[in-house]
Every structure is written in C-alpha cells, then in structure tokens.
C-alpha cells in the first residue's frame, strides 16, 4: 500500500526536470481523449478528467502499474468513440500514448529528486523518434491497404504490421553491439 505521505514528500522534492517530464506526460495523456473527441463524437470531460487523474498518479508513481491504466482507458475511449478510423488522428493518439509511456518509463529510472543527464535524455529522444517513425510507417501501411480496397482485412494489416516490425528489428539488430546510440 502506497503511503500518501510518502507521495507528498516525493512530490515536494521533485526536480524541475522531473516536473517538466511529469507535465509533458500528463499533457500527452490528456491529448488522447481530446483527439479522440475531435475524431469521434465529441469531447467527454469525464473521460478527460479520468485520464488526467490517472496520468498524474502515474507521474508521481512511475515505477508502478498505475500507468498501464492510461493506455487502456484511452484505447477504450478511442474504440468506443470512433469507427475504425484510419485518419491522421489515430497516428496522433498512438504517438501521444507512446510519449506518455516513454516519459513514465524514463521517470521510473530515477528517484523524483533526480535530474537525468543530457546524454541519456538525448539517447531516449533519438530512440523515441525511431519508434515514432515506425508507427508512422505502420499507419502509412494501413492507409495503403485501405486504398487498395482491403478495408477490414485485419489479417493483411497484421502482415504489414509484422513486416514493419521486422524491418525495425532488422535496423536495430546491428546496433546491439553498439548500444551507445
């Protein structure tokens, strides 16, 4: 059981960098229901409040499983509000959820009072750009499949997804011996 007093003490000791990362994580999570509302049937303040609350709790306890609830709630909202939309909004939602996950994962590496060194932050940023690019490739593949009148064929999309993932793995594999970048 997490002691609320400990959380309050940790929040008070948070470094400016940690505050910035926590703020960015909450903003990234909050964008998910907002974008979902733009792509679907309108805004839902209740969902937004729930997501922001969960994101805030995740930012204060990044090394816990609380952060898992944010993508689950966000995806549930997306699934319920939109109808298999492959518009650009889904890419925004995917990138926002990934940004939230990455920021919380980075925050979980150090205590709240710490400041992550610049080299590590740059390394994580570079990797995030690679993953975001892969996400864009998957989205482009989904669009391409959609245009060849194969809408609704999840099997083909899965094949494309696996192909994109394999491509990314093939790109990453040579770097395994050189993890510095």
């Amino acid at each position, binding site marked *: 059981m997490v002691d609320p007093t400990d959380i309050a003490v940790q929040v008070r000791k948070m470094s400016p960098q940690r505050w910035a990362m926590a703020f960015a994580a909450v903003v990234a999570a909050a964008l998910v229901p907002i974008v979902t509302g733009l792509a679907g049937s309108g805004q839902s303040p209740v969902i937004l409040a729930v997501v922001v609350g969960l994101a805030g709790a995740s930012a204060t306890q990044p090394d816990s499983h609380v952060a898992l609830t944010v993508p689950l709630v966000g995806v549930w909202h997306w699934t319920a509000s939109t109808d298999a*939309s492959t518009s650009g909004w889904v890419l925004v939602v995917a990138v926002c959820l990934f940004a939230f*996950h990455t920021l919380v994962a980075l925050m979980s590496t150090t205590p709240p009072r710490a400041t992550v060194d610049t080299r*590590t932050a740059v390394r994580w940023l570079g990797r995030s750009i690679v993953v975001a690019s892969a996400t864009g490739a998957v*989205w482009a593949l989904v669009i391409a499949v959609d245009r060849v009148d194969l809408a609704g064929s*999840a099997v083909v999309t899965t094949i494309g997804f696996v192909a994109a993932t394999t491509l*990314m793995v093939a790109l990453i594999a040579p770097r*395994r011996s050189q993890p510095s970048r």
Partner: protein
Amino acid sequence: MTPWQPTPALLRSVAAAVVLIAIALIWRRPDLLVIAAPFAVVTAWSSLNRPTRSPTLVDSVGHPTLREGDATVWRGAVDGVPHIDLAVAVVDHDAWVETRPECGVTTAPGDDGRALLEVPLRSTRWGVRTIERIQVSALSPWAAYRCSTVTPPRTVATLPVPGVFDVGASPRPQDGLVGLHRSTRAGDGNEFAGLRAFRAGDRMRRINWPRSIRVGELQVNGTWADLDTHVALMIDATDDLGISEGIDGRASSLDVTVRAAGAIAEHYATRGERVSMATFGGRIAHTVPPASGRAQLRRVLDQMARIQPGGAAGTAGAGRLAVGQSSGSRMTVLLSPLISPHVLDQAVSLGRRGMSVVVIDTLPENVIDHDDDLTAIAWRIRLLERRREIRMVSGAGIPVVRWRGPGSLDQVIRDIARRTTGPRLVRR
C-alpha cells in the same frame, strides 16, 4: 548485483501491445494496430536487448582522509553486460556530507557495456563519516529490465581544519634543547643573546676572536637556549553544545574545541615543539603521546577526528587521567566549554600541583539561543553560575581565556613564563 528483473514499463508495453493487437484482429480494427505499433516495437527492442547475466560493480572513494570542506569522489563502474543502457546511483542523505548534484542521484549512460558513475562528496564537518547505502541500479534499453545493489559502507575520516592561531610569547624554559622558540634563559642555542666573557666550559667555537683581540680577553657569543616546549592538549569531549552547521556555518562547542586544539597543535608541532593530546569525557578516550613535527600533527588531527561526545559519566575518570599524566615540565592547555564544574576542579587541582595550566573556554555564544523560553532561561542561569565558577578558578591562579584565534594565549603565556622564573608554592 541482483539478477535482472522486468520492470512495470516492460509489462506495460507488453500488455498494451498484446491486448491491442488481439482486439484489432478480433474486432477488425486496423486503427488499433497503429496504436499498438509503438508498444510492439518497444517490446521487441527490449526483448532483443534483454541482458542475460548480472553486471559487476566496482566502487571506490577517491580519498579515505579529507580535511573539513574538502571534496572527494565516489566512483562506481558497472560493466560486464553489453546491454547496460543506463546506470543510476542514489546516495543516502547525510547531514555532514554534501553531494553534487545536491539531490544525491547521478546517472550515467552505458557505453560499450560499461557505465561510469561519479558522485562528488564534500565533508563539511570533522569526524569519521560513513558513506553507506549507495544504491546502484543498472537498466536495459527502454528501462525494461533492472538490476540493483547496495554498496558496502565506506568510511571517510575528516580531519578538523585548524583555526587561525599564532602566539608571540614563549612559555618557560624546559629540559630539552630542541624547538624554535627563544628561551627566557641563556644557554646553548641558535638565537644570539650578546657578548660576554669566556667562562670555563664554553665551547671553543663560541669564541668571538675579533672582539677578544680588541678587548684583550676572551669573549664568546652568548645565545638563548632553544626551547623545548611540551604542550599537552586536554580536550573535554563530554558534551557537544550549541548548533553545528559544519565548516560553512555556526560552530558547536566541540567544533570550537577541536579546531582550537588543532590550531595550537599545528602552531607548536610544526615549530619543533612537542605536542601531546588526550581527550576525556567522550565515548572513547583518545591519547597521543608527545612528539613533534608534521607527522605528529597528523596523528593529533586524526585522533581528533575520532572524538565522539559522550556523557557526563566520563568526566571524573578524565580528571584522574589528567593528573596522572601531568608533569611539571609541560604546559597543559585544557579546552572545554566549562559547563561541567568537574573540569574546573581538575584544572585547579593541576595548578596546585605546580603545573602550568591554561584553560580555554570554547563555549559558543549562540548556545543561549533556543526556541524554548524555559530552556533559554535555564541556560542563562547556568551561564551565570559558570561565570562565578570561572572567577573562582581565575582567583586560584588558573588563567581562563576565551578562544579568539591569533593572540588568544599571548598574555597568558607571558604570565606563565614570568611566574616560572620566581619561587613557587607547590602542594605535594
């Protein structure tokens, strides 16, 4: 280090990827595949870079001995696994050890399977500092796997920085013929005293031939005897009164005592005089036999760094120690906040045995500042009693001076030197 353990971040990415892909396939939602894509890539990336064996940590502290205010560096090297992405060191907070960064947490990215951590440490107060519980963690890419360990405790002895001190007067003549202070009596030495007629026993090389030819009889160069002062430092470690803020802030009574004793030891030991030290009232009694030189100064400071204030119970035994080890051929400097009347009793007892005793009052002025009004009043009453006790001791011929750095002891030592030239009444 402990075996690698999956983190909540890995579980989150795996769960999101698996659940979203499953829903996408079941409900024919290709858009969910787009949302699942980054999580799937992160999962694949993390799995490909999963470490297989635990890394090793080699850590050390740059300097085992410091001076107050000096800094050293704790270094830790985490290596042995090619997939180390990040290493983190967390230093527990210690009141007298400053870290950089101030939060005590440092991170280092892994390069070629090796991460080098450095935590600069600055000890701000004398004493033996134990640097313990440095928690070191190593993480794989995307913080997917983590292993950690806690370093064994390491001690850093922090020597007190002696205060500024100088004394122009020299104490009474002693038995030996070493040291640099001019004696109050003529004798064999280096300091020129004057010309005088040759006497039986004078060395031939002391004869001043030009002067002898001019006056027609043998004349010799007279010198002052070199002085061998034995300064015995007695440190009262019964209590540590007042607030200590380290080298950069307010000083407690023990801070003042130790720094003053260090200053006196440095002044005399580096000038060839013999210095000894003994503590009383602390948890452990420390003694350093008399010797001179920089090595002796280092010994004295090293023992001072190990002083731990004890209780009043040690005071009586300390008094016996002081009497037992004292001799008439030394100058005893007793440093104490003079809160316990036993210390003054012992000083008077030593003085009545014919020993040269100087008492240095090291009670800080801020000791009366207290948040609790009743405690503040109690202190004021005790200080009034203390003032009376000090007056009585001074009346008994034991000089009590307040520590003020350079010149604190000049007048006192002149008085001692003058007194020793005359007849004394000694109680045996």
